[in-house]
C-alpha cells in the first residue's frame, strides 16, 4: 500500500510529506521497544513528539510516523524530518482508532 493512500483515506495532516510503499503498522511510545519490534516497511503510530523520533525512524527504516491523539511535533522535530526526509503526519484521531482503520484497510 502507498503512504499517500492512507494520508487521504484517514485525512491525516501533513507535517512532512512524502510517498512510499509500505506493508506493516506498529503502535508504541517506548522508543527501544519500537526499535526492537517494528518490522521493516512499517508506519509507526505514536504520541511522542520530540526530535528523537526522527532518528528512530531513520535507524529502523520506518516509512512514516503518524503522531496521534492531537499531539503536535516539536519545531526541531519538523526541521529534522525535513532534513532527513522522514515522512510525518499528525491527526486528532486516537492511536487505537488509527490502528483500527489501517487494520481494516489490510495493513497488518
Amino acid at each position, binding site marked *: 500500500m502507498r503512504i499517500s493512500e492512507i494520508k487521504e483515506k484517514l485525512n491525516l495532516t501533513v507535517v512532512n510529506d512524502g510517498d512510499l510503499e509500505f506493508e506493516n503498522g506498529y503502535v508504541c511510545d517506548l522508543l527501544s521497544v519500537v526499535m526492537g519490534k517494528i518490522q521493516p516497511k512499517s508506519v509507526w503510530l505514536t504520541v511522542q513528539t520530540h526530535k528523537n523520533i526522527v532518528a528512530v525512524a531513520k*535507524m529502523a527504516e520506518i516509512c512514516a510516523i503518524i503522531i496521534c491523539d492531537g499531539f503536535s511535533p516539536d519545531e526541531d522535530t519538523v526541521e529534522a524530518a525535513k532534513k532527513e526526509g522522514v515522512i510525518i503526519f499528525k491527526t486528532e484521531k486516537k492511536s487505537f482508532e488509527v490502528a483500527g482503520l489501517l487494520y481494516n484497510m489490510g495493513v497488518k
Partner: protein
Amino acid sequence: MSEIKLSFDIKHNDFDRAGSASSSLKNSLKQLGYPPEDIRRLAIASYEAEMNVVVHASDGKMEAVITPEMVDVWVIDGGPGIKNVELAMQEGYSTAPDKIRELGFGAGMGLPNIKKNSDFFEIESKVPDGTKVHFIIRRKSGK
C-alpha cells in the same frame, strides 16, 4: 575496500545531536554497498549503544572498523559504569530518570536490542571508570 576505520564523538545529555554517530556510520555502510538487512541491524544496535551514553553515562565515542565481511563497533564512555551488568542486560530493567522516560526512553530494551541485532556482543563495565560495549555485525549476503 580493505579496512575502514571511523571514530565519532558522543556527547552526554546532548539530545539535539543524539543519534548522529549511528547515523554517520549507517550512511558509510550504505555507500559501501552493505545489504539493507545488515545496515538495519547495525543502525539499531549502534543507536541503542549511542543513546545509552547520551542518557546514562558521560562523554564518549563510537569507533568502527568496516571490512568487506563485517563491521566491528566499540562504544566507550568515561563513567559512571554499571554496577550490575547482568541486571542491566535484563529486558525491562532501567534506571532512566522520569524526565527521560517522558521522551520515550527507559523501556530497558536497549542492551537486549544490541544483543539481538548483532552476531557478537560483549559488554565490559567498571564503576566508576566507564563502560565499553563491543558488537559485530557480519555481512550476511549480497557480497
